């Protein structure tokens, strides 16, 4: 007769058993790795762009010419502004480099942004007042449709050019997030001379013309 235990294990389901690092701690590590994978999967998986980037648009190389800062372009005061090329609502191309030679206020905006709506009449006034003084205004719409941008322009009777940053790439390059509006005043050499976070105070527009206008 074979050797048999005197008593069976009465509560095996309550017993914990160590059977080496691989099958206990290792298995636990595997479970945790699966959780981490799950987090990664849900967090980063669904980043399929809604719109395929249009070739030729977005941040582009700087135009030929001197770089007075001696540093790479960056969205900071005193640095060369990142160059970009974007479509207008009517399909025309707008390139920041085309504004070299005059001051330009690059205004990031969206029609859902209340302060942007409040600021639009002042920007239009600056555009008109500055046109004869070497100051231009360029609006960059953040990820809205051409219809939304056109409706906004018609509502406020805007005459300055509006560019569509459909995939947010230019906003990202300028580190402009949800907190709109944000504006960058660029020198004729393309250097950022001032950054305005939020709505530009009404009185500042007159000062811009006075200080930078020719």
């Amino acid at each position: 007769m074979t050797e048999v235990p005197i008593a069976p294990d009465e509560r095996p389901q309550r017993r914990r058993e160590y059977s080496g690092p691989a099958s206990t701690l290792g298995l636990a590590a595997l479970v945790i790795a699966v959780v981490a994978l799950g987090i990664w999967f849900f967090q980063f998986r669904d980043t399929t762009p809604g719109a395929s980037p249009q070739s030729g648009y977005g941040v582009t190389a700087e135009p030929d010419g001197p770089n007075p800062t001696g540093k790479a372009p960056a969205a900071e005061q005193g640095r060369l502004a990142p160059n970009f090329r974007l479509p207008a609502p009517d399909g025309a191309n707008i390139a920041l480099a085309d504004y070299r030679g005059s001051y330009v206020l690059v205004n990031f905006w969206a029609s859902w942004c209340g302060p942007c709506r409040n600021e639009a009449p002042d920007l239009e006034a600056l555009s008109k007042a500055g046109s004869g003084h070497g100051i231009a205004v360029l609006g960059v719409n953040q990820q809205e449709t051409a219809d939304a941008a056109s409706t906004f322009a018609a509502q406020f009777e805007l005459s300055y050019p509006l560019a569509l940053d459909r995939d947010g790439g230019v906003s990202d390059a300028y580190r402009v997030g949800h907190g709109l509006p944000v504006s960058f005043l660029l020198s004729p050499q393309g250097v950022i001379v001032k950054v305005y976070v939020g709505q530009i105070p009404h009185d500042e527009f007159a000062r811009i013309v006075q200080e930078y206008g020719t």
Partner: protein
Amino acid sequence: MAATAPAAAPARPPGADPFRTIWGLLTNVKFAVVLVGAAAFAGFLGVVFPQLPGPMRTNAAARSAWIQLRRSDFGVLTTPMDRLGLFDVFHTAWFNGLWFVVIIAVTVCTVSRFRPTHRSVRSPTRQVADGYFVHAHHRAAFTHPGGVAAVEALLRKKRFHVERTSEVSGATYLFAERFAWSQYGTFLSHLALLLLLVGALLTRFAGFDRTLVLANGTPAFPVFDNPGPGQIFVKMMDAHRGTDAAGNVIDFHSDLEVRRGDQVVRCTATVNSPCKAFGYRVHQAAFFNDVADFRVTDSAGHVVYANVLDFQSETTAVPVVRVTAPDGSVVFDQELPELDFQPGAAADHSEDVAVSQLRFPKAIGSGEFLTYTVAWRILNNQLRLAVTPAGGDPLEAILGSPITLDGYRIDYRGVDNIPAIRVNDLPGAITNDGTVAVQMPTDGKGQPYLVMSGVDGDNLFLESNRPVVGIQGYSYAFEGRLAASGISVKRDPGGTFIWIAVAMAMIGLSITFYVPRRRLWVKVTPDRTLMAGIAERTTRFGRELRLMGAVLGAEDALLPGDLQEP
């Protein structure tokens, strides 16, 4: 028959394997109690101490200002408390680390249970030593006719799985088992706990939840803070409050357009039935009807302000007054907006007085009007109203007790809370602080209108689509009241795990507590049958065995009291 000890001996001496030491700690009950206690205490700290508001967490300046405000309460302890993370407990490394250790401990405990449980189910101890029949807690011994065949037949009738394990010296050994799989119940419960933690982790780190307030006809609003190809926009096409014939609200729903790049999903969201788009659930979370569409144009006709005026649920209490002419016709019945305000000296604002004008036609259709000054203040949470005729003394109007002036009966019918807010940066503001007070009462026909103070010497009354020009030459137009919905955009990857975990926990606990697992060893000799077994959740398994003996025809099986039902 020889006997051995039951437990498996450790393969190596404790301490020789560092992993075993870690394992020992993670499966130690005292350590588990300390961990859970520490987690509970940390949670308690996070509830007791004020916590940094979420939006300030990434804004260093706002964070610093918030911490400075805490110095008035915590004094010199503020800095060390801040360094310990006590003002942001749930986002500190030590709090997350604590829960990480809890999760590892639960994982290790759960994993460690599986092997012995599975072995017990698949390869149970089929034979026990004879001594077990003498010493087992649940046992019986009796003499009956029919021998081993009768015992096997009875056990199978009782749904036991029966097998003969050996026959030695005229004795037959049986092993019988019922519901062996129920041992997995405890494992399932532990696995549920682990899944619950997994779900919580996924929700915590990969979940998303933001509520947007979107009014009808306003531009699509972005969901995420940062622009990018994955940005989603939600546009309100129609925020709707459904009512039945009696005017009772029966449902809220929002027709939405959800866009990501060039892809558009149009759907209807309600509170219980979300719209699904791009991996997110879009729910109706609230409904508002205190949003006004508002526009200002300059003297040249250019739009200088075109925006929605969101009253953000801010209100002011105003009286509702009805005036009945001597001929019995009602000539006025509506809310009285606040047209002037005289602050009092009392700190509790009980002496603050709001003033309005009660202006009504002498008769329906009459071009002649009577005007009384109406003033009120809030005293003991009640709005106290006084009506003053021109050149007369004020008369107090009591709620529900009409007063009569010049033959007109004036009923103070109640109090309404109407939308009221102060707006900054409105063109044409003439106040010192640049703010304009705007109220949105309803008229006698239930139509909303705006009352603006601060753009003219007098208050401006703006009826829908009837612009009024202020003192600075700006034209103010109320373009109608807008319905708006609070729209919740969510992604909760942990939700599914949590539902599964709850189901698993319920099934596991039900199995553990309610499935009558039985494991039985029987020794049948020509003279006597011995039974001994294991049955969790009952102390009367021995009685069950003796009753089986009685069913088999044994006269010596039962003990006194065995036939009494528990």
